[in-house]
């Protein structure tokens, strides 16, 4: 069964008999791992300033280009200047709307993502460990996975109602797949030598799960979670486009429909910022969880 759609984010290679996770310096390395490794050289104020410059340079250039575009006469109603967008941004999100529209959205996002992570990892471990269960369930999962969550919204309205439950279900249904499938692959790829060794030493049950299986699969699990996080943000917006009366997605659609274009842009800017912040937070967590793994790889590479 091919996993090519998720493969690019999977840090470990196929299952082999060499100690896993095996180090392969040329491929399989996530860009995150690369920046992490170099970080020691970038410590100190100069390094921090450099990093900030790296982050801000391209956005500044893009905003500049866009500004120049909007500054020409007749640039149009639908492309307000960054100044107008900025004003709308401050007026909108530094007000009650933050509590009415943004916080509930983020809450649903958090709950949906957490549930997807629980279900994905739990079911993934189960499937990864048992080939027979996997053979039975996997075709169904592949089928369900191909269903775009938005088309399920009317059905979910009937089953789960029009409140938060429906919106969270949409998020969970959409972003559980990368977590689940990556966990299955990660668990399957547990090094058999390590596995046998653990068995010889009498490591079984939850200890085995904790120190061997989850640990060994964690690079893949984290890769799945990272994909799922991006999906969760998109699905948060989509779920609010149906049967809604509040939320960030609802607000953006509403602005678009009422021709409040700077406000619509301000909503999209906020979504982008949320995505950026969440991705940065995730990187921090990932650094902690996968610290051992990166150290191991660096050691293999002889650094």
């Amino acid at each position: 069964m091919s996993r090519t759609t998720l493969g690019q984010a999977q840090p470990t290679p196929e299952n082999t008999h060499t100690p896993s996770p095996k180090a392969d310096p040329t491929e399989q390395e996530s860009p995150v791992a690369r920046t992490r490794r170099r970080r020691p050289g970038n410590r100190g104020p100069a390094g921090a300033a450099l990093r900030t410059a790296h982050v801000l340079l391209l956005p500044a250039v893009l905003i500049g280009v866009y500004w120049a575009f909007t500054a020409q006469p007749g640039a149009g109603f639908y492309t307000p200047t960054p100044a107008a967008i900025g004003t709308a941004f401050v007026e909108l999100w530094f007000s009650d709307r933050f509590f009415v529209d943004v916080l509930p959205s983020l809450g649903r996002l958090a709950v949906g993502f957490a549930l997807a992570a629980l279900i994905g990892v739990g079911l993934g471990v189960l499937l990864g460990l048992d080939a027979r269960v996997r053979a039975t369930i996997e075709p169904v999962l592949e089928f369900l996975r191909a269903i775009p969550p938005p088309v399920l919204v009317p059905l979910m309205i009937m089953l789960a109602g029009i409140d938060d439950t429906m919106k969270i279900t949409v998020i969970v249904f959409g972003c559980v797949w990368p977590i689940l499938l990556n966990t299955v692959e990660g668990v399957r790829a547990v090094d058999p030598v390590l596995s046998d060794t653990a068995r010889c030493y009498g490591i079984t049950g939850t200890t085995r799960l904790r120190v061997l299986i989850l640990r060994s699969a964690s690079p893949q699990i984290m890769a799945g979670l990272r994909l799922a996080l991006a999906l969760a943000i998109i699905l948060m917006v989509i779920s609010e486009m149906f049967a809604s009366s509040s939320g960030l997605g609802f607000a953006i659609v509403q602005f678009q429909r009422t021709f409040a274009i700077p406000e619509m842009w301000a909503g999209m800017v906020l979504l982008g910022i949320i995505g950026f912040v969440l991705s940065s937070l995730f990187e921090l967590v990932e650094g902690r969880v996968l610290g051992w793994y990166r150290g191991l790889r660096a050691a293999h590479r002889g650094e």
Partner: protein
Amino acid sequence: MRLSPALAVAASAALLATAACSPSEEGTNEGELTTVTAGVIPIVDVAPIYLGVDQGFFSDRGIDLELESGSGGAAIVPGVISGEFDFAFSNVVSLIVAREQGLPLTALTNGVTSAGEQGADFGGVFVLDDSDVNGAADLEGLTVAANNLNNIGDTTVRQSVRADGGDPTAVDFVELPFPDMPAALETGQIDAVWAVEPFASTIREAGHREIASNFVDTHPDLSVAAYFTGEDRLAQDPELFADITAALEESLAYAEDNPDEVRRILGTYTEIDEQVIEQMVLPRFPAQINDESVQTLADLMVTDGLIDSEPDLDALLP
């Protein structure tokens, strides 16, 4: 910030691309038709324009009318502004809001008008048959579904509540597409729905009870929607628009006088069930916008906070 500038550039590129394609109008040689593109939502309301094409009211005036479908006002208005559509169809509330936001739109003719009869209009508010709700005032504290919020549906339903002696601010509105409404009503997710034909017929047929005719409560001759264009486009080619307006007026009059023809043409561009087409309540199609009803609607929009100040209707209305 990572996403937004990228989006900005993509959007600007898309806008430049659309701006590059100028209106679909070619030079008019003698005997040749002028191609005109109209943006419509393929629903019951625009039957007259399909009839007009069918009956040759546009080609008689040298116009080859192409009808392009849009999903709603928010998608169609940008098409008019960019010149992709020469004119289009939208509800009056959206037009007033657009005008207030600084989009120079102007109406050509009326589009569709309330049937004017309590309990027999082309749109209404429905509850479950065994619901405690007997009038619009009973909607206080309940949840009502409308296809779009801050638009013509919820504005006129609030007026029904007000007219019935209730407090419209105590009604919660939720956005739900028309086709999903019956299920949400039956499972008790929502207490009432506002729907227009053909969905209203389906809901009636399912045994649900109509408690208010919100358009009629607002104004018996409520102009619900209109055909409109951009001011610049109108000034560019007044003769062409005189012809378009005349063709629209003839189409509307034909639809108004021949309801059977309206039902026939509905079968050609919609997927509505034949039986529903036979049963449903048709709107009226007068060519003239009822200015007084639009004024009423504008006042309600100010009261409900859809717009901040009294709009300049003279600029919008023909």
